[in-house]
Every structure is written in C-alpha cells, then in structure tokens.
C-alpha cells in the first residue's frame, strides 16, 4: 500500500508571523493521503485555508510543522533549489487564471517546464506537440495567449502541466474563470486524462458540485479536514471521452 501513495501529509500545521504578536495559525494538523491515479478534490469556502494547503502540497511553501512526502521525496527537508526541482519534475500546476507566459506561443509555453528540466530542444518540441495534440490544441500551437480563448488557454495550461510527467496535477479552481460550457469541457478533459492515462489529479475548488464529480471529496473548513467522502456523481459518469 505504501508504494502506492503519492502524497502523504502528516500533522501539517501552518502558522504565519510566527513569534510575533499577530501570529496566525491557518492549518491545524492536516492529515492527507493521496494514492496514485486518484482523482480527488479539496472543497472549502474562502478562508478555509485551502490556498495555504494547496501551496504546501504544491511545494511553493513549507509547513511550520509536520511532514510531507511526495512520491517518496521528503519535501520538508528540501532546500530552496531542491523545492524548485520538485515543482519542476513532480508537480503540474493548473491555475484559475491560466498564467501562460505572454508573447510566447502555445508551443513555447508547453516547452517551458521541459526547458527548466534541461531537456534537449528537439525532445521538448516533440513532446510539446504531442501534448497539445492530446488536449486538442494542435492547430493553435503557434498562437500567443492573447490570441486564445479562456478555454483554449486552460487547455494549453493543462498540456504544460503534463510536460514533465509529474506525480500530481494540482488544479486550483481551473474552471473559475470560464463559462459553464467551457468549464464542462475542461472538466471532461480532466476526466479523460484521469481515465485514459491514470494521472493523479488534485482539484481545489469552492464548488461542491464540481467536487462531487471526483472520486474522493475532502472538505476543508477553518484549517481542518472535517469530512471525507466518495464523490456522489463520480460513479454516475459514463467514463466516455466526452466532447472537446
């Protein structure tokens, strides 16, 4: 069972302004396990601490207490440069605001993580083309972000997140800026990636409906996980490829 765990969070605490009069504890002892190939979601309202938790899972921040093992790597013990490597190789971010690099083509955007991973140019290009094809953006590879719609940008972002074959995809409100139809398309894409390629996905969202689509729903409130349940609509999915 251990070899199957991709994320192991143990007694995670996060405090800000430590030692100061305005010291603030946001996370109070989070335990969280994610297995390989799982599609889980973390639901919480604003102020629940889900951004803080996401930053820790994404190795953007270190916990004040507790341990975090990511695919066998002890994240807490890593120095700054190592954290960068961990993010580069093991984590694929998808943001609500896409965060594509402007003035660069979709292709270059998808190549970026691979460039930091020191892959050769030809290798990068090949892989990037493949990924863009997979998310249905093959015909827009040379477009710049300002020439793409929201849904298209998010698809490019997803391709980018997959560039270095990460251990997990961390998606923070990925449909937050999209209309319902486009949002549906993106969620379908996540499902397809999960079903066809067994990718581990962690969805952060404030929407319970979206959360119910995932295998496992973790409810976060006031810095603690108050509930864990199977996604109600997960089993109802036909597991078809859906429309893209």
């Amino acid at each position: 069972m251990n070899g199957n765990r991709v994320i192991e969070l143990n007694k995670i605490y996060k405090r800000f302004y430590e030692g100061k009069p305005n010291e603030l504890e946001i996370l109070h002892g989070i335990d969280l396990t994610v297995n390989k190939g799982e599609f889980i979601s973390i639901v919480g309202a604003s102020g629940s601490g889900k951004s803080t938790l996401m930053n820790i899972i994404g190795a953007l921040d270190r916990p004040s207490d507790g341990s975090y093992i990511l695919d066998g790597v002890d994240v807490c013990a890593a120095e700054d440069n190592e954290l960068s490597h961990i993010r580069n190789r093991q984590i694929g971010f998808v943001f609500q605001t896409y965060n594509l690099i402007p003035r660069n083509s979709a292709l270059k955007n998808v190549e970026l993580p691979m460039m930091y991973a020191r892959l050769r140019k030809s290798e990068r290009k090949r892989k990037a083309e493949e990924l863009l094809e997979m998310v249905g953006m093959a015909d827009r590879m040379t477009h710049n972000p300002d020439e793409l719609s929201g849904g298209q940008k998010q698809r490019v972002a997803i391709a980018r997140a997959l560039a270095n074959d990460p251990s997990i995809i961390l998606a923070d409100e990925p449909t937050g800026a999209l209309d319902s139809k486009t949002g549906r398309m993106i969620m379908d894409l996540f499902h397809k990636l999960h079903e066809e390629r067994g990718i581990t996905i962690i969805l952060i969202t404030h929407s319970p409906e979206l959360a119910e689509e995932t295998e496992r729903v973790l409810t976060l409130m006031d810095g603690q996980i108050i509930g864990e349940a199977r996604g109600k609509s997960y089993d109802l999915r036909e597991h078809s490829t859906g429309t893209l």
Partner: protein
Amino acid sequence: MILENILQALFEIKANKMRSFLTMLGIVIGISSVIMIMTIGDSINNSVNDLLKSYGMSPAVAIVIQKDMANLEDSDNRDEYARPRRNTDLMDEELFKDVQENFSDRIDGIVLSDYYDGMASVGSKGDDVSIEGFNAQGDTKNIVNGRSFTASEYKDAKKVVLISQQLANKMFGSAEEAVGSPLDINLGNKPVTFVVVGVYGKSAGGVMSALVGEDNRSVYMPLKTVEELNLSGSPYDVGRYNYFMINIKPGTDLDAMCSDLSTFINAKYYANNDTYKVSVEPTDIDLSALTYIKLGIAAIAAISLLVGGINIMNIMIVSVTERTREIGTRKALGATPGEIRMQFLLESLVICLIGSFIGIGLGIAGGLGASSLMGVRATPSVTAIVVSVVFSMAFGLFFGYYPAKKASRLDPIEALRYE
C-alpha cells in the same frame, strides 16, 4: 542553457521592440558619441602628422647654438652676451657632404630652406607674397599641375617658381594656363621675372591646413635662387646655414643618431669654436595635447554612457515589476532563483550588446562622415570599438544585476497573486 536564455532574451527584446529600443538608447548615444569623438580625434591626429610631413617637418634638426647655453639662464651671467655669429660659425656644403657620407646608412636626406628677407609682391595691385626656397631634399609640395624643380634648376639657381592654385587662378585664370608662363615678382620695388613651372595644391592636411593657416601666398623656388636674391640682405655668405633638418631612414634609432651626429659635427667642425656649437635634436612635435583633448571629450561623452546604464537599470526594474506574475509562474514551474536571475541578467546584457553594436555602427559612420567633411583622413579606432563592447557588457552586468536579483528573490506565492 545559456544559449537558450540568450535566445529567450532576444525573443523578449523583439517582442517589446519599443521598450527595448528606449532601454538601449542611452547606450547607443553614449557609445556612438565616444566612438565618433575618438575616430575624429584620431583622424585629426593623422592629418596633423600628414600635414607636418608635407611641410617637410623632419624628425630631427641640427642647429647652431651657443655653447654653455645653460649658464646664460643664470641671472648672474645675464650681462655676458656672446659675440655675434660669423660666417665661420655657420654650417656649409662641405659639412653637409661630410655628414651625408658618414651617416648614409641612417640619414635619408638633409633639408635646407631659406626665406627671402625683403618684401615681395605680384600683379598690378601689389599682392603680397612670401618667398621660400628649399633644396631638393626639402621638396614635399603637392604638385597639381606642371612639375617641381629639376636638378639643374636647383644647381644653377634658376629663376623658376611654384605658385599656389589660388595665385595661379588669380594671375593666369587657371592652373593649366599658369604652367610655363612668366611671372613678374616685385622684389623691393624691382620686378624680377620668373617662370612658373608648377602649381601646388593643398597638402594632405585637409581642414588642419586651414587651421594651421597654410599660406597660398607662398611662392617657392630653388634654395640657391633665394640665396642669390638675399645677397644684399643677408649678413652671411651664400651657402652658410644656421640649421638644417634631417630625414632619417626607416628603423633608425632617432636619439642615438642625434647624439652621434652631434658628436661628429662638433668634434670635427666646432672643437675650436669659442662660442658656438651644433646641437642635434629630435623635432619632437608634441601632439600629446591633442590626445588629451580627445580623451577629455571622450570622457565627457562617456558620462552619457553612465546615464545609459542607469536607464537600463530603471527599465529593467520596471520590467521585472510588470512581469511579476510571469516570474511567479516560472518559479512555480520549477525555475530556481538562480535561473530567474540569469534570465534577466542575460536580457540586460543582450540589450547592452545590441545597443553597443548599433552605437559602434553609428559612431563609425558619424566619425567617417565628419572626417570626410573636414577633409581629413579617417581611421576608425579599433581600441575604441573593443573598449566600447567590453564596457557595454560590463554595464549590462553591473546595472542589470540589481533588477535581476530582485526578480530572483520574488516569493512565488506573492508573485502569483500579483495583479
């Protein structure tokens, strides 16, 4: 990786053409002005040298001076005046022949010149001219029409002259018409007829000639001709000289030759002279002032380079701030602080290099253009170019460092939240 970054930097620069251009403007202006000034300065230097050469300014001069000149500087000895020069104190043909024979391996030629002592004029209106004579080895005029003097004309003190283009145009209508025509010169009210054998043009000095006041009122003739004209005026015999200029063969050690020649002449001809001796000195045209002026102006221009560098730093800081989100994203994707720093440092380096290349191009073009306008021979200074490139790279690194460091230190979480 560095190559990648350079390509990325070029990409960013191209994507933001206006901003990149404004960023490098200071460097472009600074470097182009420095190069232009250095080029013009070098060109002027060359032209002064050319001019002096054309004026027959030989590298060394031998001159009759009083022995113990140093003592006369003393206030105590001021009352002691040396006896005036006599013919026997001056140098003559025999001495020259002797010198040329004994120093033939080092001396290329001995230049003798003399001026006509009285007033001279030409034409009905009595335009003043100055008459100068030189020997064959002192013949360095730039003949544009006709020819210079022949050996027999030098030897026989023929009444032949070289006149300027301006004088030729004035007296004869054109240089072509002047050659071969007779010219009456009033020497102390008495007209003497000469034949114009050649017309001289501007020497190689271009604008420098104008500045030095190259005289188109000069009329040149063989040395002996002037000497015979001076018969009544000069206190000394024909064929006696106070000084002569020395042209040396290439590769000769100037100081050694001067010293050897001095010893030779004094031992043989002035050993028994109670008052006078001959001193042989390098003419040492001191052009260092020109160099200092050139460097001084270039240094002032270089101040604009400093401003250019500060400008780069400013705009890079703005760029970093504007790209905060992007930096956050890159860090989230796995860029280390070092890689971010490298990215921005290379951007500022590339901007500086491009700016310096443009500046060098403009500077050379401007320098060559200005030089040709002034009529001087132009040589772009290779030193200035190399120094400019090195400096601009150093500037790029120095002024780009702070913004790059700032970028690398951004907290990814904060940066990703930046609006």
